[in-house]
């Protein structure tokens, strides 16, 4: 196969947390002018001519890969050998192909190698002893089995929250492992006359396998087969811990995908955030819903470590940002984050309670907040606090302004009860249509909530329904936070007769 890197453009895919795919799809179009945008659960595929620097700025994705191959799912057969052959053929290419891949990868990692050096094709002098290599490697191969999704991809820096890549969905029968072969053949004495760069080049195969295929071929076996095939072809050295190049192979019932990650750190690791609270991808997505325009005033009245404000201020710097919290330690952490990010001019902090905000009415264009209830606090207290919180948020918001909230699964049911607006519950459609799918998903997930519970809550809070009459629902998005699920709720403030 030929790499589609004509005219500096390329085809990529980016992994995404569940629920983030529509946000990422919209972002690649807006930020990178991407075309041929396509997504499935957990991955967004796109083509773009954008430079690495621009690609690095993606905010709603997890890891970015250069797409090497995408094809129909592997045919499941009883003959494991046949399946392994097919899998090996995925990475079997002409030597120039892999040299091209390396040079693209080097470009992304800031190495500008002259094509001449790398193209010194060594004609695989290792070929003669490749069998020997394989035997040695097979004897000494290490197998690492990772059952958690939190694997090498979760390289948390000191003090940083751990970014968890896309969660396995329940119906997947997944095994997941990283496999690598340790090449000890250097001790065999025969020094190939290869390009020294080629010799020092190390790789690792990361294989994820789910669905029907996983039942027959565990991912470590697939990874091993791919690794051997690559070693034979290219003479690369296998290194589990610090490989130069990582080859990513993902096989499931939908497709087979081969790619190489382009950056060492996940995109969700922000160099401008010292201590992350909420996942940066979700925080950015919430800010992207708030419709922040130049000169806007934006408030997070329960800002915690300030993650939402940081993401918003970085992306939409021509606005004023305010954060409030009652906790000294959180405010201190937010202060450090803001200084580290160099955003002191943009973000103002207050020690204040969301239930009694020291701020004038109708003074903000957007209120964005991650409501912590239902995660840490007992759910029984929340029902009393939530109306007060909403009331203050509504008060400080200008007509036409937006409220964007992140709610836990438990809390969002209460929210529906509190803010139900007559018969009209359908959120306004957002043009890309993706939110409607997310809404349907959200409502479907919620389908098993008992009506009696809602009934009781409704009667208790019916007197409060009119309090939030000016907040109209404008979208619900289910997202994964790694271990738990949550919902982003968007509201818009409309003017109501009798207001003032």
């Amino acid at each position, binding site marked *: 196969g030929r790499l589609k890197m004509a005219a500096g453009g390329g085809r990529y895919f980016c992994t995404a947390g569940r629920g983030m795919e529509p946000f990422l799809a919209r972002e690649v179009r807006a930020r990178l002018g991407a075309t041929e945008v396509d997504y499935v659960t957990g991955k967004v595929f796109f083509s773009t001519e954008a430079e690495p620097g621009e690609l690095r700025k993606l905010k709603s994705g997890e890891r970015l890969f250069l797409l090497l191959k995408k094809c129909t799912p592997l045919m499941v057969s009883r003959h494991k050998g046949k399946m392994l052959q097919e899998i090996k053929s995925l990475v079997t290419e002409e030597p120039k192909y892999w040299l091209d891949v390396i040079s693209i990868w080097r470009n992304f990692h800031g190495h500008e190698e002259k094509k001449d050096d790398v193209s010194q094709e060594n004609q695989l002098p290792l070929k003669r002893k490749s069998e020997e290599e394989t035997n040695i490697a097979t004897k000494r191969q290490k197998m690492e089995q990772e059952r958690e999704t939190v694997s090498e991809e979760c390289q948390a820096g000191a003090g940083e929250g751990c970014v968890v890549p896309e969660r396995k969905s329940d119906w997947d029968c997944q095994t997941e492992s990283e496999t690598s072969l340790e090449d000890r053949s250097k001790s065999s004495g025969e020094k190939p006359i290869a390009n020294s760069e080629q010799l020092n080049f190390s790789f690792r195969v990361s294989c994820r396998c789910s669905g029907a295929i996983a039942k027959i071929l565990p991912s470590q076996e697939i990874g091993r087969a791919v690794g051997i095939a690559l070693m034979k072809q290219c003479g690369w050295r296998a290194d589990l811990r610090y490989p130069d190049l990582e080859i990513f192979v993902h096989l499931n019932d939908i497709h087979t995908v081969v790619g190489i990650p382009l950056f060492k750190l996940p995109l969700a690791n922000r160099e401008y955030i010292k201590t992350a609270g909420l996942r940066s991808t979700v925080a950015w997505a919430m800010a992207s819903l708030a419709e922040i325009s130049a000169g806007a005033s934006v408030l997070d009245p329960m800002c915690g470590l300030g993650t939402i404000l940081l993401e918003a201020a970085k992306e939409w710097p021509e606005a004023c940002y305010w954060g409030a919290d*009652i906790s000294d330690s959180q405010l201190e952490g937010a202060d450090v984050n803001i200084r580290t990010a160099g955003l002191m001019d943009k973000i103002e*902090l*207050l*020690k204040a309670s969301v239930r009694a905000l020291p701020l004038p009415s109708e003074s903000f264009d957007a209120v964005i907040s991650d409501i912590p209830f239902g995660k840490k606090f007992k759910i029984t207290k929340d029902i009393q606090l939530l109306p007060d919180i909403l009331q203050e948020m509504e008060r400080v918001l200008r007509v036409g302004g937006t409220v964007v909230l992140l709610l836990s699964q438990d809390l969002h049911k209460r929210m529906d009860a509190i803010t139900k607006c007559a018969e009209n519950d359908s959120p306004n459609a957002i043009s890309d249509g993706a939110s409607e799918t997310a809404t349907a998903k959200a409502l479907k997930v919620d389908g098993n909530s008992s009506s009696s519970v809602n009934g009781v809550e409704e009667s208790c809070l019916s007197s409060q329904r009119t309090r939030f009459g000016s907040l109209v629902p404008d979208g619900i998005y289910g997202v994964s936070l790694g271990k738990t699920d949550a919902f982003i709720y968007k509201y818009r403030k409309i003017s109501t007769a009798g207001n003032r």
Partner: protein
Amino acid sequence: PPKKKLGHPSELPPEPAPDYEGDESFLRRVHHVLLEVEVLEGVLQCPDSGRRFPISRGIPNMLLSEEE
């Protein structure tokens, strides 16, 4: 940024002079106080009620007590 006790800055008059728009050195001092000075320790005072809100480490504490 260097920490400085502001106290009662004698550099600024209690009220702007009638032709303050043309007084460049005055304007510079005002600009400095408004945009370049960050109060790390101090007090905010409500002009109506006189209620004082302490500022600590640059963050004003505006929590109200139960009675307020």
